[in-house]
């Protein structure tokens, strides 16, 4: 254990700190998904120039073109979080499609899509889940039928965040209906303006439409829009999912939330006493603090593992499950600490934190379920982490005829 940075990294840390201090007036409002504002796009361009985002993506594709340095990436994330500065643009195009294209895309695809995506000019949505294909994603049925130079796409996607404003979609479609389910899928890129695509907002329990449903009726997509080989979309998608799982359950988010919760308990009162003076709430807070610290140190352990080239399997596999659950517990305690005030929502008078605690408490359930449900995560931990046997396959269930 040696947590000191080398002189080079210490210098780099100071550079990042200075940069953030000097640029504070230019910080755009913190919003990382959806269409980027002009200020956010200027900020993104500046961050790329400095190498604080898109750091190791080649210059020819709009990145910074730096050598990959995990520790520097960690320092960047840490310093931005410490300063409360908005990071670079995130969203599924940048965090999932770009790495996939860089690994498996054709030169034309990289040329055409990576740079505008990085700059926030081109917004993407992800077309994976379907009403009948959630945890069992490979059973997806949206079809892409071979019609000469094109595919003709028919079917439905669901849980498609940002579909209503996206320029493009990366989607999984069934191109080989007779092949085994994992081998009949292709990974397609398609403009959302293509005729035959209909986007309907999907309102969730939070009262907002964070997601959409997307319907395809005879949507014509050129065959050149496939990423990787035809029928190998499942492998291509797994390249992408690897990047998504890394994003969910981020311990830095738990750390930020915990700090907000401490402030809340110090500032709010009950019967004239600080909430921090309530021994039961305080005990619950300290209990969660240990979990937050454990996940943060677990993150440092993973980082060191990557630097050494030997990532501890279980420590990595548990991050999504534990991190999302922990965030949910933090929001739950904030609501309990606020009591009746914690119930307030939308534009109510006396609303605290713009209703963020309730919104997070509900939206977290979506994160616990999405990106591989908690139960699927437990199967993965047990099978890949602990080496336990897979569930034996049963005879196929009867076709349900589209009932939900």
């Amino acid at each position, binding site marked *: 254990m040696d947590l000191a940075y080398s002189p080079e990294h210490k210098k780099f840390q100071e550079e990042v700190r200075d940069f953030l201090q000097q640029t504070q007036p230019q910080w755009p409002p913190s919003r990382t998904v959806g269409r980027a504002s002009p200020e956010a796009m200027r900020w993104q361009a500046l961050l790329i120039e400095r190498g604080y985002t898109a750091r190791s993506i080649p210059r020819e594709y709009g990145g910074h073109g730096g050598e990959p340095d995990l520790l520097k990436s960690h320092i960047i994330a840490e310093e931005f979080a410490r300063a409360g500065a908005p990071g670079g643009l995130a969203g599924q195009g940048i965090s999932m499609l770009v790495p996939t294209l860089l690994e498996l895309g054709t030169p034309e695809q990289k040329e055409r899509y990576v740079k505008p995506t990085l700059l926030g000019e081109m917004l993407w949505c992800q077309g994976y889940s379907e009403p009948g294909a959630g945890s069992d994603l490979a059973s997806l049925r949206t079809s892409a039928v071979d019609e000469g130079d094109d595919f003709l796409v028919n079917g439905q996607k669901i849980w498609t965040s940002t579909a209503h404003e996206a320029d493009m979609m990366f989607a999984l479609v069934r191109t080989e209906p007779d092949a085994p389910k994992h081998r009949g899928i292709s990974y397609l890129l398609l403009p959302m303006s293509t005729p035959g695509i209909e986007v309907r907002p999907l309102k969730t329990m939070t009262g907002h439409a964070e997601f959409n449903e997307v319907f395809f009726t005879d949507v014509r997509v050129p065959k050149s829009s496939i990423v990787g080989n035809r029928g190998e979309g499942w492998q291509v998608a797994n390249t992408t999912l690897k990047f998504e799982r890394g994003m969910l359950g981020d311990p830095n988010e738990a750390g930020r939330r915990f700090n907000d919760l*401490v402030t809340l308990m110090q500032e709010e009162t009950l019967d004239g006493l600080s909430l921090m003076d309530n021994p039961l709430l305080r005990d619950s807070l300290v209990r969660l603090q240990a979990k937050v610290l454990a996940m943060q140190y677990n993150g440092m352990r993973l980082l060191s593992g990557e*630097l050494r080239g030997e990532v*501890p399997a279980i420590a990595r596999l548990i991050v999504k499950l534990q991190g999302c659950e922990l965030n949910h517990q933090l929001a739950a305690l904030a609501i309990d600490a606020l009591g009746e005030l914690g119930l307030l929502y939308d534009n109510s008078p006396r609303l605290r934190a713009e209703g963020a605690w309730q919104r997070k408490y509900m939206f977290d359930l979506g994160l616990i379920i999405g990106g591989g449900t908690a139960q699927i995560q437990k199967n993965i931990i047990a099978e890949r982490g602990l080496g336990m*046997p897979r569930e034996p396959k049963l005879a196929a269930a009867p076709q349900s005829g589209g009932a939900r």
Partner: protein
Amino acid sequence: MDFGLSEQQLSMQESLRRYLQQAAGLEHLRSVVADGPVHDATLWQGLADMGLTGLLVPQAYGGLGLPLMDAVLVQEVLGEFAAPVCFTASAILAPLALALAGSDAQQEKWLPRLVDGSLQVAVCITDAGGSREDAGVTAVNDKLNGRLMFALGAASAELLICSCREGDLYLVHRDAPGLEWTSMRSVDDTRCLWEIKLREVAAELLLPEAGDALAPVSAAGRIALAADTLGAAQTMLDKAVAYSCERQQFDRLIGSFQAVKHMCAEMAAELEPCRALLWYAAYAYDAVPDKRTLLACHAKAHLGEVGTSIARTATEVHGGMGFTDLLGLHYWFKRIGFNRQVLGSPDRLRAQAARVQGWGVQADRLMEQGGGYR
């Protein structure tokens, strides 16, 4: 920057595991503790021969002078084997108390004997209340009076190190007149606990050159017991997984049922981050003294919670067999239960973690004014 163990630390743990596999298997454990709580002197000598009893003793006295981390890693492996030795008292608490607060003469006299394994020390310290039945000792003119409960250490201890109500540490010779030792029997026979009555017992004050010795020694003990729980809980999880991959019901390995699989996954998901928390707490003990108490409280409280949950769940995965004496799973179950209470139960440690962060000070003051609290 490197958040992890060194090659040397990993290979030390591996060689200790190899030694304990042949010297401290389940049958050995069963026979050694057959008549109640013991300290296994043969095993202790084995640890001493490997140089593990002197890890924290300064080099000037023949030890290795290593940071707490290395001793904590030994304690973790002892937890894996539920090894019946009083390592926490004689190889962690005693050398730290003597090194921090012993005079040259005291250090010279006792520290080399900790290294060669010939000296056992009993230790009874408390820095955050927690006195039951009003136990505690008072020091007046280097004479101790009162009663200590839950002292850790071997029956063969020649020395006692204890804290008095005022917070100072004292060293007492076992043969000092006025001492009366009674064995306390806990559920865990792999460690020994004592009640000690003191009437006008002559004691030597352990006076640190600067600062306080009690807080760091308490913190070290808590980190050690947290490590012991980490090791013991890992063993219980490993045994549960292994059993579920052997045992068949309904023509299937029970480990292929999601109900069982998810119990194991949940245990792993809770336990694995504890490893990083424990490493950081052990690292902070030497490298970030400001955070020493906070992290020791967190590590022990959190591992106490996770450990007991795993002890219960792993037993359940074994079904009826887990409940019997035949598998011996209960040795680890009880070991974890012991670690949870000794040197501070989770609720008390969380209260202390809040106090050191200045949380809830207003309420503490109000309670103190009203009296009766603590």
